[in-house]
């Protein structure tokens, strides 16, 4: 041949390019994949190329180029493993088939079926079924193997057959060469071009499968649902603040977030950047295969392996791998901080003295923030009893019994005659005030009988049903709010109130912004003032049925009998009040008492940090029982000793949440100056087997997981952003600051060291200038 074939050289270059990106991609990326730019002025995310990052950002504000580089190792690893598995399975089966007719018939039949089913659909099903929140990539490699071994098997089997009938095989056998020797010495070199082409084809096929899953919105690895809305200072309309992201970053997951049809016009780089990565990788892999195939089409592999070139190439590859292993990771020294923090955990009795001894600076003149607090609190579950029937508060299941301690009610145990006040509607409570001629509650019930005229509730236990809706003709008016309705009963001087609310079971025990509970809101907005007032207990109709059975009243039937669920002017209630004296005695008990405490939180700042630097607060929650026994306090004491001479902008707080966490926290927040904080790391309840991290600020989740992993802490990966119900003792004054709660899962086990290491690593990165912490 006159000219040297360029393809082997191109293949070699492609191979080293892929190896280099896989080994060093993460290290070369300009930013880490845990770095989010959540806000950039008023620019909408994803940011256009060149605005914040040269290749643009993804939906959540990460540098796409960096994420693609960081994801190269995982992605290429999966697909090469998948391709290898397919070809290896094909080769093994082909050799087995050439030796045994039984294997051959079976493998032929199965491969015919496997090859006939479209691989995309099968991989999609396998991944959907087997990939759960926390799985390994091996599932995906398995799916690739199951769907793709048939192609290599068929090609290789034909080739093995052909070689078996060649004259040189027979001659070799005739001069006494063993089967193994024939296979290794004579057949393998012939198979090399075919194996190379197959391997590259199957690797490309795996890449395509991975990409197709991404386009179809199905992830391959662990994935997290992340919302960065809480980290933004304002929320623009129409811009997504949440997305699924893969961890470790992987290209298919990137495609999944850019695949909307509108993205073709608006944000095409979100799809194009990982798409180009896929296409380039496919072409490079194909080039490697093509190069190998063309080089070994007429040349023996074994000759080459003995030559000097092969040795030089393998040395080069090994050097690359070794260098990759030796290059220190980013902020490698932070691991030493983590180790120091872990070693410094120790039990202390007096945090104030230990802060002072360590050399922390007092904040606002003192190490302690103290106050006296008292509050009236319920001490035991509420109960109610009528004759033999009784109901009491439980702590689980749907709400059906709820003691209501607020400004107008109180606690205590009351025994008194029982009266039924029906709907508790009195025209005197609701003045008619029609709006633009539309009737309101007052107009509708203006000439209805007064339920409180029919019975005298003074000194008695009143049963009141909540009227949800009242109607006149086809007009429906909402009934009174539960809190004003209850206050209306209470101002008539009953000994206690049993209030029946059909909506009660629908309210959550722990309210959130999206699922509020009006009763808990009432308790916070109008706190209780008396230990012994008239107790109020709210029941669901079902619970009321049980309690009032001896009195012959079944509230659920009363509600069920209302036409359309409304009390209308057409019903009897508009003419005669159903209120009556029941002639039974009842007992209502809402145990309550005054709690008092002297609250003492300890605060200390690490001295020497640059002036004006926004500080990270480590917020250890003291146990409300006996201070000093908690894991979190020991971590803070250890951190105090370790950090005192390291001049990082960190403030340590041992927070006493007793009785009134929000009030206590407000005092501490005043001392700290909440505006100059960048992050609050909350440590609470550090026992169990694994640490759990939760936060409303989704941009912190990948970072915290990375910290815990690098610090060698036992931790469970966080799979999603905490919702509205996210809470830690004292959160209210810090709602504008990014915060992270680190706890243990309940159970035996000491996690103090793990939590200390995680925080130590974080502080270490902060000191070394990592970009994701200060913001």
């Amino acid at each position: 041949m006159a000219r040297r074939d360029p393809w082997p050289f191109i293949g070699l270059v492609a191979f080293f390019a892929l190896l280099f990106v896989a080994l060093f991609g993460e290290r070369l990326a300009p930013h880490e994949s845990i770095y989010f730019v959540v806000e950039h002025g008023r620019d909408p995310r994803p940011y256009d190329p060149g605005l914040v990052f040269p290749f643009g950002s993804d939906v959540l504000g990460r540098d796409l180029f960096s994420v693609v580089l960081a994801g190269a190792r995982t992605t290429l690893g999966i697909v090469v493993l998948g391709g290898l598995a397919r070809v290896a399975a094909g080769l093994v089966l082909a050799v087995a088939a050439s030796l045994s007719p039984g294997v051959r018939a079976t493998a032929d039949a199965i491969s015919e079926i496997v090859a006939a089913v479209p691989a995309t659909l099968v991989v999609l099903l396998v991944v959907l079924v087997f990939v759960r929140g926390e799985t390994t990539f091996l599932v995906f490699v398995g799916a690739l193997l199951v769907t793709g071994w048939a192609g290599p098997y068929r090609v290789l089997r034909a080739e093995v057959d052909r070689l078996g009938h060649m004259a040189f095989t027979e001659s070799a056998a005739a001069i006494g060469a063993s089967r193994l020797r024939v296979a290794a010495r004579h057949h393998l070199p012939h198979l090399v071009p075919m194996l190379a082409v197959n391997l590259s084809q199957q690797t490309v096929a795996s890449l395509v499968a991975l990409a197709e899953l991404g386009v179809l919105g199905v992830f391959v690895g662990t994935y997290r649902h992340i919302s960065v809305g809480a980290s933004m200072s304002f929320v623009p309309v129409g811009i997504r603040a949440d997305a699924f992201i893969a961890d470790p970053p992987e290209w298919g997951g990137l495609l999944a977030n850019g695949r909307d049809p509108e993205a073709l016009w608006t944000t095409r780089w979100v799809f194009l950047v990982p798409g180009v990565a896929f296409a380039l990788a496919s072409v490079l892999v194909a080039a490697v295969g093509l190069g190998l195939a063309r080089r070994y089409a007429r040349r023996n592999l074994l000759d080459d392996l003995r030559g000097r070139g092969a040795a030089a190439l393998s040395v080069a590859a090994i050097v690359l791998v070794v260098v990759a292993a030796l290059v220190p990771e980013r902020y490698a020294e932070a691991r030493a901080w983590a180790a120091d923090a872990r070693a410094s955990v120790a039990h202390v009795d007096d945090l104030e003295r230990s802060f002072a001894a360590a050399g922390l600076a007092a904040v606002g003149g003192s190490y302690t923030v103290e106050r006296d607090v008292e509050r009236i609190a319920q001490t035991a579950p509420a109960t109610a009893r009528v004759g033999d029937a009784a109901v009491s508060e439980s702590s689980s299941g749907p709400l059906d019994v709820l003691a209501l301690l607020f400004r107008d009610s109180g606690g205590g145990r009351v025994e008194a005659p029982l009266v039924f006040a029906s709907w508790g509607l009195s025209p005197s409570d609701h003045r008619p005030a029609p709006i633009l001629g539309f009737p309101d509650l007052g107009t509708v019930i203006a000439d209805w009988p007064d339920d409180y005229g029919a019975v005298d509730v003074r000194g008695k236990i009143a049963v009141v049903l909540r009227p949800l809706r009242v109607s006149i003709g086809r007009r429906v008016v909402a009934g009174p709010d539960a809190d004003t309705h209850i206050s209306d009963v209470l101002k008539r001087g009953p000994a206690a109130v049993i209030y029946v609310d059909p909506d009660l079971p629908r309210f959550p025990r722990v309210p959130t912004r999206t699922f509020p509970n009006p009763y808990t809101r009432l308790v916070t907005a109008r706190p209780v003032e008396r230990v012994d007032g008239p107790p109020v207990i709210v029941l669901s109709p079902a619970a009321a049925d049980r309690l009032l059975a001896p009195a012959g009243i079944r509230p659920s039937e009363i509600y069920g009998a209302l036409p359309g669920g409304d009390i209308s002017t057409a019903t009897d209630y508009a003419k005669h009040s159903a209120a009556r004296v029941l002639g039974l005695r009842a007992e209502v008990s809402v145990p309550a008492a005054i709690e008092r405490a002297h609250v003492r939180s300890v605060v200390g700042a690490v001295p020497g940090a640059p002036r004006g630097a926004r500080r990270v607060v480590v917020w250890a929650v003291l146990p409300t029982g006996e201070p000093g026994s908690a894991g979190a306090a020991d971590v803070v004491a250890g951190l105090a000793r370790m950090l005192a001479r390291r001049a990082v902008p960190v403030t340590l707080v041992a927070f006493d949440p007793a009785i009134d966490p929000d009030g206590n926290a407000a005092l501490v927040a005043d001392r700290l100056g909440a505006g100059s904080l960048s992050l609050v790391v909350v440590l609470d309840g550090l026992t169990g087997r694994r640490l759990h991290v939760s936060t409303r600020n989704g941009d912190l989740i990948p970072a915290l997981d990375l910290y815990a992993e690098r610090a060698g802490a036992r931790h469970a990966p966080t799979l999603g952003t905490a919702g509205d119900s996210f809470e830690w003792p004292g959160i209210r004054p810090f709602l504008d600051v990014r915060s992270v709660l680190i706890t243990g899962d309940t159970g035996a086990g000491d996690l103090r060291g793990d939590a200390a290491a995680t925080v130590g690593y974080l502080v270490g990165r902060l000191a070394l200038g990592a970009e994701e912490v200060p913001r």
Partner: protein
Amino acid sequence: MSRVAARLLRVPLVVLVVWGLLAAASPLVMTLYPGYTLRYGVGSGCGGIQRLPNGGFAAFCQTVAQAHHTTFAALMVDAAFRSLALLAGAALLALVVGGLLGIAAALLRRRALASGAVIGVTSLLAAVPSFFVAYFLQIAVIVLGAGGGGHLLPVFGFGYDEHLVLPLLSISVPAIAYTAQLTATRMNDVLDADFVTTANAKGLLGSWIVRVHVLPHVRPVLLEALGSGLRVSVASLPIIEVLFSWNGIGALAVEAIASKDAPAFVFCAVVLVSVFALLSAAADLSRPRALFAR
């Protein structure tokens, strides 16, 4: 002849076996994962909430036919025609463009660089994932259209008109590349054969040799290449149809998986499997057993 009959008989056999397997397995498998919404605007959905008789709530998936507001039979027949239109177009393109490219590469073989370039470029082109080709074409059309100030081509949607252009191009790229490669290889082998050397030595005209002595040997390879190349197209059918909102068999299969509609999935999969099996048989039957056996 019996070889051909046996091979053809295997086609319905494979289809039946796969049908049985899928019909048995897919309803079971589909209970094992929650349904998901494929993407906004594509009509499939497990977004609905259904009230159960016991008062609780459960996620509720529409069947694919419900999502498309039509009957199962009408939807499937329509979808099958849409997909077959794409595949037929791809076959035509592969035969004409791929075959010509392959022949050109082989005739240029004395110029190693040119023929190497054709082979290399087609190999690499075959490696570019179809979804990327599709997306790249869509963007190119949008950008060019915006630059030209007009509406160049529809970027997605269905229609037996200019809507066909982009899906057809993206689905036939691997088939074209594969056909070109196989044709070139085969033609190279034939050009190296002794009888061509002899014909040359006798002083026959180059064009005559090619037309009378070479091309007849290359023709069966075209069919083989078509069979193998189109299988790649069928494999990428689901993704291409989803990207172009084509609502053919492949896209419906994906929707059926997303909304856990087992009958629709089995039907779509069986159609795809039949096409696959037929193409495999065509490729096998036209594969020459050995060079110049007759």
